[in-house]
């Protein structure tokens, strides 16, 4: 995977820096008194051009430290509308989880979700952009690679001509999605515009693994959201980090979370020795 080089620089740097400081640094747990004054509503969901239904989650914030579980909210009303005027009312399938009812996401459409939670209404919009095809995929054995010895999977994709495309890369290995904030890579097309470009994921894998490589075409808004995920969740709390701030949310009325839209291409690689 070739993620945006600027994050490769900063990421690697921070990693090594922390490592070197680590030679002198020590760490210990401290007790802090952090108070949550009032919970905030959190809404999260994605519409893609893959077949539905699409799932949304409604919850509220809880204490940061400690073990408090996720505080899911039942009884919310959610409606998704597209820019042609079609509306889809969501159904609560289990507490806090809501699903669309027949809606099919399409490229070049804008979508709006409107959620009513305990009498307050929150809404967010996003645009579902285009994506180019994956042309081929495969794996390669490497014993001198920086992330360790093993099989590395990659693919070749045709980037559509014209600046302004943004991508999110995901990876599923043996049916399990790599879903930590460090595993999501985003990039734009400024270095590869219109090119047939190779990508490789930075994980050494094993022979026999079944791997699904996935690229999502996302809007600039979604890209900006992931930049805040990267900046906030993978940089330390020291004087070198960006100032702490909430992740970018596109909901109005103060709700946290994110409403995303994506066009998806996938390919499956079975690693053979």
């Amino acid at each position, binding site marked *: 995977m070739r993620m945006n080089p600027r994050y*490769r620089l900063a990421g690697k740097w921070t990693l090594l820096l922390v490592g070197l400081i680590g030679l*002198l*640094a020590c760490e210990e747990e401290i007790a802090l008194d952090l108070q949550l004054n009032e919970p905030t509503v959190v809404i*999260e969901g994605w519409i893609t051009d893959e077949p539905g239904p699409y799932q949304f989650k409604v919850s509220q914030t809880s204490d*940061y430290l400690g073990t408090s579980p996720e505080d899911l909210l039942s009884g919310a009303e959610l409606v998704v509308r597209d820019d042609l005027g079609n509306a889809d009312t969501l159904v609560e399938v289990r507490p806090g989880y809501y699903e669309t009812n027949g809606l099919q996401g399409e490229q070049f459409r804008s979508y709006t979700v409107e959620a009513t939670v305990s009498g307050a209404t929150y809404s967010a919009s996003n645009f579902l952009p285009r994506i180019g095809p994956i042309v081929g995929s495969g794996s390669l054995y490497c014993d001198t690679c920086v992330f360790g010895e093993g099989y590395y999977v*990659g693919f070749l994709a045709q980037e559509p001509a014209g600046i302004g495309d943004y991508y999110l890369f995901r990876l599923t290995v043996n049916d399990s999605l790599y*879903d930590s904030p460090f595993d999501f890579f985003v990039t734009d097309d400024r270095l590869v515009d219109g090119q047939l470009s190779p990508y490789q994921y930075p994980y050494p894998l094993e022979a026999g693994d079944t791997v699904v490589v996935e690229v999502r075409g996302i809007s600039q808004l979604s890209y900006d959201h992931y930049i805040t995920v990267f900046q906030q969740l993978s940089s*330390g*709390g*020291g004087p070198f980090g960006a100032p702490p701030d909430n992740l970018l949310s596109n909901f109005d009325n103060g709700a946290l979370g994110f409403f995303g839209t994506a066009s998806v291409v996938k390919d499956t690689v079975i690693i053979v020795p």
Partner: protein
Amino acid sequence: MKMPLAKVFLLLSLTVVTTAWLSAQSKFTLSGYVRDAETGEDIPGASVLVPSIGQGAFTNTYGFYSLTLPQADYRVVVRSPGYPDDTLSVALDQNRTINVELNPLDYQLGPVVIEDEREDDNISSTEVGAEKIQLKEIRRLPAFMGEVDVIRTIQLLPGVASVGEGITGYYVRGGQTNQNLVLLDNATVYNASHLLGFFSVFNADALKSEYKLYKGGIPARYGGRLASVLDLGMREGNMREFKATGGIGVLASRLTVEGPIAKDKASFILSGRRTYADLFLLASGDPDVRNTSLYFYDFNAKANYRISDRDRIFVSGYFGRDVFKFRDFFANDWGNSTGSLRWNHLFSDRLFSNATVIYSDFFYGFDGQTFTGEGFEFSSGIRDIAFKYDWNWFANPRNEIKFGLDVTLHKFQPGLFEPTGETFLQDLEVQPDYAFESALYLSNNQKITDRLTVDYGLRYSLFDQVGPGEEYNYGEDGETPTDTTQFSTGELIQHYHGLEPRVSAVYLLDERSSVKGSFMRTRQYIHLVSNSTASFPWDIWVPSSRHIAPQISDQVSVGYFRNFFDNDLESSVELYYKWMNNQIDFKNGAELFLNPTIETEVLVGEGWSYGAEFLLRKPRGRLTGWLGYTLSKTLRQIDGINEGEPYAANSDRRHDISLVSTYQLTDRMSLGFSWVYSTGRRVTYPVGGYYLDSTFVPQYDGRNNDRMPDNHRLDLSLTIDPKKREDANQKRRLESSWNFSLYNAYGRRNPFAINFREETEERPVAGQPGVTEEVRVRRAYLTYLFRWVPSVTWNFNF
């Protein structure tokens, strides 16, 4: 400013010229240089006093003084710290040039110096908010990893706070780190730190013995930064004999050689330093660590030539680099280079001039490869070429006039990404920006009465961003580029200008006490783009442009100074209030790297800071040192941050205490001691959290609402000096001294960072023995560095 600028200048100069002319009747001028008798080097800041009439002058940066007095016979006392006084008898019946040589005080003569008249510099000087530091003094203080560091010493002064534990970045009176101007032989040093801030770029062996930090009341001849000026000079080199000095420490070694090129005419000095911290990495069992290199080095070089008593030229340069390599995957280097060529010329024995041509460059480079093996190079930086012409006119003992001009051409290189070899990657360059920064200044240090002295001046600064370049135009939201405008080479893109009045005054209440006051306005036309608290070497500078306005600051300060016990104990209280406009911060999630439309990520607001600084200082005796205390508050208000409400700035430190002392145990041994305390750094802690997909994510409410635990630390040192030479003419041999330092002597866990993590652990289920469940727990962790860091340094000279 309604008054035309030319008029203001004219008015100022007329006042000065008239007073000078009126008082210049039947008087003669005594002028010359004050030099060190052993090395022949100039002594700046020495006082040349005429006690009988209570007048005097200081030597300037180049050791030149000039005094114009009525015809008479005078007893003249020449005095500088570290030298016994020299007294001359002068029959001033014509203009006289007298070069004075002072014999350095041998420390072995004993710590107690007998002086008939004690210095009261601190109460009589018009400098408000200026701190003078003697290198000799800091050599006896504890040194972190054995490296004598001028910037670490600055952090011990009232009004100056450290960015974070162990880091050499500093805040002055609530300003940002990038609002500090650091000059080395007149050249700007853009990034004054090595190893990400744990060391400063200055090799103490190559520096002049005295340097100054201005926190307020900055003289009109300095400009370009909002908060402070640190003015450092490189030594000229011994004019009389060849010498080598050096040191071997746990972290770095240094070597300096110097000597005459032509005795008393020309000399040179060469100085180098290299760290070998990475050698420790070789001991690591991890091949990744073993194949990592991380070191820095720097060189200083200077030569000067006295063409005649009226003309002298200096050429000096600095080159420093940090290098960071990780296996074959990447190589990284960054650093400053500066060069200056200076010409001192005496137009008359009262008019001194200095012309300087300056080169200054900060470079950051990264050679790496993408994971698919595509090689690339990235570079960024800033480069200046500047010319300064400064004049010093010793009109009469009551007026000393300084005027001059400077012009700088900046080239800003925000980022260049170049793939190497055969590749599908494309080049990406954020276009360079060009700008001229210029200024004219005039100031007068006027002794109005025997009690009242005022230093007043005016600086007029201009900034012109010029082509070539392609400038983005933005739509109504100020964010979406609509089209671009092309500018050809030299074509004006944006112009800014403004006046910067600078006034400071001292009023002597009696022989032991004075009150001082100052006002200054400063403008900063270039901005550092960084959203971390500490600075990274890849932080980039950008000019004021069509979208980013210059920063402007006003500061007033008042102080009361009083000496006790015959000037053996100095004390002062200073109060300041400071306004800062057009302060820059960045949006949440701002992308600052390789971003051609960086101005769309900027948020603009204002800041203000106020505080009280208390200082008690004992300059002489077996026991020397100071106790400083600062009480201050710094706030910022920026739309888009903290919901537009004022918040505590990163530089906010409520309490800051430094107790610094050296004690001469015996003729050869001295103890150094420093204890610091400061209120914890401002931070933002989460107030709550939520699951985004399956990741627990913090929720924040506002900016900098919390504080880290307080910082405090004790450092100790023991310095052993060489044996005393029995008589001064004895042939030189190797002399050596030892410095043993212990950093953080009581092992305080000073917070460097606080991180939050979610962990999964197995916990027994209540009521079901033997059954466990997975529980996700969030905890806070404190990271601390440097507990008990001992070091030993062996210094030598021959």
